[in-house]
């Protein structure tokens, strides 16, 4: 699996997903809870707008000086005995990890949840090498057991599944005999995975934020699985998207606080770990070998463009948790491991318009996402910008839309034309009008009236009413 999770058309996906009533109920419920928790956490912290502005300026500063900070990070990690590999593409990253696996003759590989390794399709590459790759985040573990069902959310990947479905997966794949109680399911996973942790050869994690000043990698979890993955195997590999970096521990703290509050409404999650290279000579647990793989895979193409702010993203999913479109169509409709508003902006940039040109249109531009973003990415503006690029540069918008936009452009550009147009509207629509409404319209109105009635243009225009009104009041 890589970033693209299917070959179906967006519309077909949406139609299929919208029939999944459990998924839609689950998503709506989760959104409600996560939204409330995020708002409470922000309220409790106080000065939320100031925190957001600080988060934004940290991310902007880091991106503007990304070359410096990546250089500093790699120097400092090397000083602590770590290895750093810069990968321009997914293939380069996967090949490097593969080479370590071969060198170590590793069989069992443990993973903590990482979106970037999903993006580069690392698991399937390692499985082809004959490795046993085990996801340890409970949500990812469930999906992996269920024949690699793709994640539908970047923080809670198995959001679309209910506990009965999860129980069925466990029963089929793990010979599970208990009930669908979340506690019992989680305990079973704990016991199964505990044995795996102790036998693993290599641990692979993502990276929430690397810290340039010290060469550290910061990991944020609730389950404690990242700790297991990094403490127990003798070799550790961290894979990070190249933009996931901060200058110092001080900025790390600010962004971690924004991340945990925005993602799950917690002040901090249960486990936040800063790892700096392999274990020291005096230590006995932790890896003896530490590798950091820094992945570009299309990100540098976004730097320096009008879309640069999307790289500010800290993967908290706050935008996903407020998106009304995501609520109804779920994560899988987006055909990308990055769903929701952030996915609709990021996916076409990383994966191209050919496969993902519908995504920027899957939004009403209601700006709930922009409002929720803890680092102030103007998501709705970027979605709108995508549409402009698609229309202007690529000429890929449907003809009807291009015509309508052009016609309005000409009609609205001069005072007399605008006045004439608004005068005509009522008579043009007359044949379709019944009881002041239009329930079966022509042309573009057809799609509208399939769902709702359309009010007939008012026979009296505002400018005529206004003149009449002034006359009556003796002002004309």
């Amino acid at each position, binding site marked *: 699996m890589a970033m693209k999770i299917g070959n179906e058309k967006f519309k077909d996906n*949406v*139609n299929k997903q*919208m029939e999944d009533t459990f998924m839609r109920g689950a998503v709506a419920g989760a959104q409600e809870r996560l939204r409330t928790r995020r708002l409470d956490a922000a309220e409790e912290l106080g000065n939320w707008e100031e925190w957001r502005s600080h988060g934004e300026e940290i991310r902007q500063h880091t991106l503007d000086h990304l070359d410096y900070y990546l250089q500093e990070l790699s120097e400092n990690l090397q000083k602590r005995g770590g290895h750093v590999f810069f990968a321009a593409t997914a293939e380069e990253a996967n090949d490097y990890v593969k080479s370590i696996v071969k060198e170590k003759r590793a069989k069992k590989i443990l993973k903590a949840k990482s979106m970037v390794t999903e993006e580069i399709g690392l698991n399937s590459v390692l499985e082809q090498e004959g490795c046993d790759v085990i996801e340890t985040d409970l949500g990812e573990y469930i999906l992996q057991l269920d024949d690699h069902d793709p994640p539908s959310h970047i923080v809670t990947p198995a959001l679309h599944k209910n506990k009965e479905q999860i129980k069925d997966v466990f029963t089929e794949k793990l010979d599970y005999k208990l009930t669908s109680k979340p506690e019992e399911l989680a305990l079973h996973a704990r016991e199964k995975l505990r044995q795996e942790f102790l036998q693993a050869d290599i641990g692979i994690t993502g990276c929430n934020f690397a810290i340039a000043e010290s060469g550290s990698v910061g990991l944020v979890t609730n389950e404690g699985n990242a700790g297991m993955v990094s403490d127990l195997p003798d070799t550790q590999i961290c894979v990070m998207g190249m933009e996931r970096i901060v200058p110092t521990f001080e900025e790390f703290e600010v962004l971690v606080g924004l991340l945990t509050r925005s993602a799950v409404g917690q002040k901090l999650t249960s486990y936040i770990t800063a790892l700096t290279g392999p274990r020291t000579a005096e230590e006995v647990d932790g890896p003896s070998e530490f590798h950091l793989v820094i992945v570009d895979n299309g990100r540098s193409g976004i730097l320096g463009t009008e879309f640069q702010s999307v790289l500010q993203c800290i993967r908290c999913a706050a935008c996903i948790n407020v998106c*009304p*479109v995501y609520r*109804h*169509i779920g994560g899988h409709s987006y055909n990308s491991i990055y769903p929701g508003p952030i996915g609709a902006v990021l996916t076409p940039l990383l994966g191209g318009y050919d496969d993902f040109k519908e995504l920027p*249109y*899957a*939004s*009403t*531009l*209601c*700006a*709930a996402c*922009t*409002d929720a973003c803890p680092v102030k990415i103007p998501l709705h503006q970027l979605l709108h910008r995508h549409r402009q690029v698609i229309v202007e540069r690529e000429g890929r918008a*449907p003809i009807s*839309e291009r015509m*309508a936009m052009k016609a309005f452009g000409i009609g*609205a*550009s*001069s*005072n007399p034309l*605008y006045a004439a147009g608004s005068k005509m509207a009522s008579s043009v629509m007359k044949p379709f009008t019944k009881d002041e*409404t239009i*329930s079966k319209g022509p042309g*573009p109105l057809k*799609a*509208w*009236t*399939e*769902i*709702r*009635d*359309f*009010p007939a243009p008012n026979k009296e225009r505002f400018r005529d009413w206004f003149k009449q009104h002034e006359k009556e009041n003796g002002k004309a």
Partner: protein
Amino acid sequence: MIATFEDAEVIVTPSGSCATMFKDYQHVFQDDPEWRPRAERLADKTYELTEFIVDVLGIEDVGAKLEGIATYHPSCHMTRLLGVKDAPMKLLSHVEGLEMQPLPNAQNCCGFGGTFSVKMGNISEQMVDEKVDSVTETKASYLIGADGGCLMNIGGRMQRRGKPVKVMHIAEVLNSR
């Protein structure tokens, strides 16, 4: 649009969405030395209707009368982008005979979104249905809003579903006597 409206003393629009766009031209033309200043001047004198009445004219009671229970849908662009949240509520609270009921999940988009409403018709339908259900829950006989697009969408769907709720633009409410 700039050329059409730039000679006006002030520009008042009965739509949060339109006001937002008028204020956004300066960003569209940010690299254009000729149009940018013109767009900035336009932005500075553009107001959404309720914002203009409350914040510029300083009027909260326009002497309107309307009997019944109503609920108000705060449009996305008007609240989130333009930042106009309180003005409509202030004006409505002074309408004689009108009882305002809070709209559940008021912050949710109604599913209009311009071309979205036809391009992504089935998603739009689900969103507007959610909004119609919220309106129905309030038992209001009027749904008031300040953006034509949203009202046309919600109103059209309510009519299709046979809901006896009258959709009114806030300007109509304030003009009721």
